[in-house]
């Protein structure tokens, strides 16, 4: 009788442990954790830049608009490749603001680069939703955003939170970006 009781106790303990382990990691709980992680979006720190045409632009003033912040430089090959694509994207989406923040050491290099762009890109760059600025001493690029690898692009939602960070060149005309920008409109 005593032995049977011990055996039953063991079986019950085993069953209890089984249920506990099984419940601890149910798919629902895992999904819950993932959703929580995704919804914790980070507010992008504020900064002010002076554009090449001497206008002052502060990120917090752009709340209510989707912002694409592109860290680039004229000597960075992938940056040069994606530059016209980004300009075309901003032209096609006037409700977003595109900031080209250059790590070039002088403004001359940027101006020379802009001169070499196609007529179509030059036309896009005249749009009011595109800003080009030089980051003096890389205070925003390196000190504030720790960006050391160009190009890097931050897509910031209307609340000023980071929606996506893209390292390197990407397909700016692709479906993924289109969907993302569409989602950010809501």
């Amino acid at each position, binding site marked *: 009788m005593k032995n049977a009781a011990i055996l039953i106790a063991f079986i019950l303990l085993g069953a209890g442990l089984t249920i506990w382990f099984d419940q*601890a990691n149910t798919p629902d709980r895992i999904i819950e954790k993932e959703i929580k992680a995704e919804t914790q979006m980070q507010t992008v720190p504020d900064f002010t830049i002076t554009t090449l045409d001497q206008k002052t632009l502060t990120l917090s003033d752009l709340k209510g608009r989707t912002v694409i912040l592109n860290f680039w430089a004229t000597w960075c090959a992938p940056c040069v490749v994606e530059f016209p694509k980004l300009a075309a994207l901003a032209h096609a989406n006037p409700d977003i603001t595109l900031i080209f923040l250059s790590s070039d050491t002088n403004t001359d290099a940027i101006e020379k680069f802009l001169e070499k762009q196609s007529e179509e890109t030059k036309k896009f760059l005249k749009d009011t939703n595109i800003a080009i600025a030089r980051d003096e001493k890389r205070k925003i690029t*390196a000190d504030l955003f720790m960006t050391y690898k160009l190009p890097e692009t931050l897509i910031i939602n209307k609340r000023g939170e980071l929606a996506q960070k893209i390292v390197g060149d990407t397909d700016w005309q692709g479906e993924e970006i289109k969907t993302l920008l569409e989602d950010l409109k809501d």
Partner: protein
Amino acid sequence: MKHLLLSIFLILIGLSNIGAAQADESKLPIDNFKSLPILHDGRIKPLDTFARSELVHFSGKHSFEGQDASVWLARTIFDPATASEDKIFKVDNSDVRHLMGLEERKKPLYAFTELTAGLQKTFPTVEQLMGEPKQNLSTEQTALLTLHESALEYTQLLRSMSLLLPLNVDLPSDYDDHKDTTTYLDLKKHAIEIEDRIRTIIDKKGNDPEKYSPAEQRVAILGLQIRTIESAAQGNNLLRVIPSPLESGDYLAPWDLVGSGQATWESVPQIALWEKLADSWRDGKAKDWHDALSELHDLNKTDTKPEILYNKISPFQNALIFYALSFLFALASMTFHGKKGLTILSALTAIIALSLQTGGLAARIIILERPPVGTLYESILFVGTVAPLFALLMELKLKNILGLLSAAFMGMMVGLLAMSMADEGDNMKVLTAVLNTQFWLTTHVLCISIGYGWCLVTSVIAHLILLAQATNRITQEGVKKLLHSQSTLALTALLFTATGTILGGIWADQSWGRFWGWDPKENGALLIVLWLVWIIHGKIAGQFTNLQVTMGYAFLSVIVGTAWIGVNLLGVGLHSYGFTEGLFWGLGIFTIIEVGLISALALTINKRSVA
């Protein structure tokens, strides 16, 4: 009595933590550093565990010259120049020492600086060996390859924080940020300008530095230094201590964070705090050290305390000491014909050991968030806990010290086996996907491990019966009683092993789509079941004498050893952990000893009964 036990407990716990106590003598308190989280081998663990496993990997020891492993780690990452003189590389193989041109020492421990010439010299050989299949390599070749791999890992550690450490650079005034020290990250901000200037200089004066002015030479050297630091840090991703701001739950090494573009503004305080830690460590500034650690803990919010406590108490190692004491007390009690005080002492020390093991298993469940039987090592810990527990339960029933003796003996033996299997300190491995299914891991593996535990108790009791009969230290009545207990134990062992084996089949069916695949481990489990069924049936049918039945149960230790550990050495099948030479010989010698011992005891009993 109570005070005596408490004193024994405290002395023994203290003894095993000498290293930790001495670590407090280092210039800065290390406790908060130890508990910082790191992502290593697929799970987040405290730096303490990482430091221990790295140090064991290099030197085979948990501490360095009496210092805590975390002190060694802090010196290695924050003060690499000093650390590279630490004699931490254990080069056991004399041929490798000769090849590397190392001097012979009483203890074959060498500093990284002593190895560098030899590493360079043997690199072409190692390059060739890397292309060879591992099974074709000799012991010396494997040892040489392992030493090179260890040295590579060590250089990763030495350089892991090099982007935050002060550089010995001659900075042109226009790049001087007026900081006390200049780090790689400070320089990196100017790297673009420096590259620009170097391009201009080359355009103007060509590639010969002798044609440059002193100011131009300084710029060129600076550019070279930046590139050298960067190339040395390529792929440096071992020390993953900074939480990824983009991927929840992921951690990155400082170089990886900067190089992969995963850093954001949230990484800035992390990097700054690690820089502050590095500075305060080198300058011995306790306040800065303490503040930086507190802030890092506030930012990271990962609780690693259970594992720190687990490391500090070392429950399984300490349990071994208590089992040894329990065994001695039990033996003494038997010698003095069951003296009550000694029996109580034996029981209490065994209970302390069992409590430590149970606490250890509970801690592993909390830390790993899964049942504590996912690897061979873990199953040894588990069986090492349940087998003495079953023996103690038996003692409750029989009250003849044999249960105590069995519990202590099994606790010691399985504990020693676990220690020999505890590779590289941290043995809390992340499981492969198929194993990491909580339900089946809990039911099948626990069931079969409990079965192993019962088998071991049965075997030990069978040994004791043989021993007692051979030495004529037991009455016929006593033998009868023990044979009855032995049968009950064997039936319980059969129940658990058979159920566990069937559950394993169901798990295999769900995971791999087949119930039985004649995998060595499956065959091993079946072997135990068949062995038990054979002996039990032989007994019931009257085909075996009591002596033969007891011999069969005694030999269960070898059957379990083969099924549990031996099949992993075959190098094939889904449960293979690879061939381990030491384990192979250990199991071989154990089998020979068991065959010899059981046969000798049986022959003696036979002779006695004939006489």
